[in-house]
């Protein structure tokens, strides 16, 4: 049956993907059908979705972050007269059970893109007198809720009010919950975050009942935080959530898994450090710092308590390691959900996302962060097993990264692309050499 799905008006590109993930999690196996109500722009918060039952609709709405509500649509029209006609033609057998005398009900007037005064709201409700309500009104705790929704005349802005600009929306807990929904987190599942930081993603996963596990190369935030009552562990305690099954300090570039360990996680969810805001780090570094290729030998008397040096972790290598980890450690059908940065040039976003033989891309949702770049939430599902061939290819690639270390670093340097001063257009010059000369001088602290 077709339901009206009303979204909150933000993260527009994430909305349908979230509902689709949740529907699949709830056992709706065929892909969802969507359509737009008449006169609505794709960015509109009003969408029509075909769902198998009211239970599914209710469960999706309860779990979703971006769905405001899912409704059975009784009628629509561009004027109150048209609305009346439309409601009257809606099948009686769908309406009568909800209008019966032993029920209690409430009508709420809601608007999108305009304000309606209290007096007008009352008038609107009175105008519905043609509906044969038999039940009693109960404003506090009604059995049945009716909504009358009004939107503004669609003209400017695709007919929509502008999305509320919330600055510094780089990380919000809402996004962590969205990611958990994309990953179809459920009780009893094991979720891993290889860049755990202070654990916000795992908090969301634990909230939905998963067992959680996290690693980070810099464990100070995890272990020490801002004191004994302000760290990852206390984060979980304060929410009354079960603590992570494991937290460890490890390098995603050199993971410490035992040979033979595979297909253990149900989902991997993370926001990898791409070097735009927080620079990624991996083991190594000192050798490059001094321009010496041979590894630094730690003197015997300094071994205990030695803090290994770290090196910047390029985007390409970081993504390669993440996909390899996920291919090996996810169960079949398990999901990898992560952010991927995309540079925006002249408002054109290149839709080329990482690929892997073991994975199928399910959803990509863009969120523009600045005029220069966006981040895209990618949802991938594991469809192929981690074969010997895949593993071998990954090993060779890993080695290549080691050998072409400096070159790769250049390729993956997002920080300078995002933060460099604007320089004159290159025009027709596409020669790589001249591009290089024009490469901005400004570099992040660690590069």
């Amino acid at each position, binding site marked *: 049956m077709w339901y009206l799905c009303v979204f909150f008006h933000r993260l527009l590109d994430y909305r349908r993907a979230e509902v689709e993930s949740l529907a699949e999690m709830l056992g709706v196996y065929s892909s969802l059908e969507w359509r737009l109500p008449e006169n609505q722009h794709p960015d509109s918060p009003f969408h029509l979705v075909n769902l198998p039952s009211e239970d599914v609709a209710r469960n999706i709405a309860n779990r979703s972050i971006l769905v405001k509500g899912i409704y059975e649509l009784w009628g629509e029209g561009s004027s109150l007269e048209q609305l009346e006609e439309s409601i009257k033609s809606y099948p009686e057998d769908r309406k009568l059970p909800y209008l019966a005398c032993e029920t209690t009900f409430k009508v709420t007037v809601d608007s999108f893109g305009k304000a309606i005064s209290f007096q007008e709201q009352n008038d609107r409700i009175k105008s519905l007198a043609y509906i044969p309500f038999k039940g009693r009104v109960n404003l506090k705790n009604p059995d049945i809720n009716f909504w009358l929704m009004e939107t503004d005349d669609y003209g400017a802005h695709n007919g929509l009010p502008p999305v509320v600009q919330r600055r510094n929306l780089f990380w919000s807990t809402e996004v962590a919950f969205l990611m958990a929904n994309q990953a179809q987190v459920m009780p009893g599942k094991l979720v891993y975050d290889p860049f755990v930081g202070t654990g916000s993603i795992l908090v969301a996963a634990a909230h939905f009942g998963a067992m959680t596990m996290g690693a980070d190369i810099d464990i100070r935030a995890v272990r020490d935080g801002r004191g004994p009552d302000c760290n990852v562990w206390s984060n979980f305690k304060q929410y009354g959530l079960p603590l992570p*099954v494991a937290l460890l300090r490890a390098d995603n570039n050199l*993971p410490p898994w035992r040979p033979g360990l595979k297909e*253990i996680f149900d989902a991997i969810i993370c926001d990898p450090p791409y070097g735009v805001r927080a620079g990624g780090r991996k083991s190594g570094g000192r050798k490059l710092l001094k321009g010496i290729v041979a590894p630094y030998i730690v003197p015997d008397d300094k071994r205990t308590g030695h803090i290994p040096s770290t090196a910047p972790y390029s985007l390409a290598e970081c993504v390669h390691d993440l996909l390899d980890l996920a291919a090996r450690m996810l169960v079949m059908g398990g999901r990898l959900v992560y952010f991927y940065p995309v540079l925006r040039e002249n408002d054109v976003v290149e839709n080329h996302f990482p690929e892997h033989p073991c994975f199928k891309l399910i959803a990509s949702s863009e969120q523009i962060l600045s005029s220069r770049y966006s981040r895209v939430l990618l949802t991938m599902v594991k469809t192929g097993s981690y074969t010997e061939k895949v593993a071998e290819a990954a090993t060779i690639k890993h*080695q290549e990264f080691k050998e072409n270390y400096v070159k790769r670093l250049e390729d993956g340097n997002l920080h300078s692309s995002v933060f460099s001063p604007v320089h004159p257009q290159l025009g027709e010059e596409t020669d790589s050499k001249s591009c290089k000369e024009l490469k901005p001088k400004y570099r992040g602290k660690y590069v």
Partner: protein
Amino acid sequence: MRLFTHNMLSSNIKGVANGFPLRIEAEQVLEKQVDFNPDFLRNLFPKLEWKALVDGARALGYAELPEAADSSMLESEEFLRKVHHALLELHLEEGALTCPETGRKFPVNKGIPNMLLHEDEETSLQLPGSLGSHMLVRITGKQ
């Protein structure tokens, strides 16, 4: 660190052929109660290295696990409770994990094992772990 984690980790120091299981040196062991979830344990069981779990539990002072186990024992709640306790409720709060081959210690502080390698311990080449076979690769580039 719980034994669940211990069961997944190995020493990946350059040149170490068999870095699993890590030996546990316990300074402080805590017991924290965790909700019992038999389905989770049944799913996990085939992926466990049983002997490492038994030895690890003993190192943390729990000797109730049988030396050998097979999937038929998953029917017994008594057995599952023991596995649950060993795997999820025993915590190594302070101590170290020792590489069985080199003796290198990976410290465990506040329950978090530090598996980072020193600069001269990094393998330049990681053999794919899940294959059970070994591959010898000659590095032709610089090392």
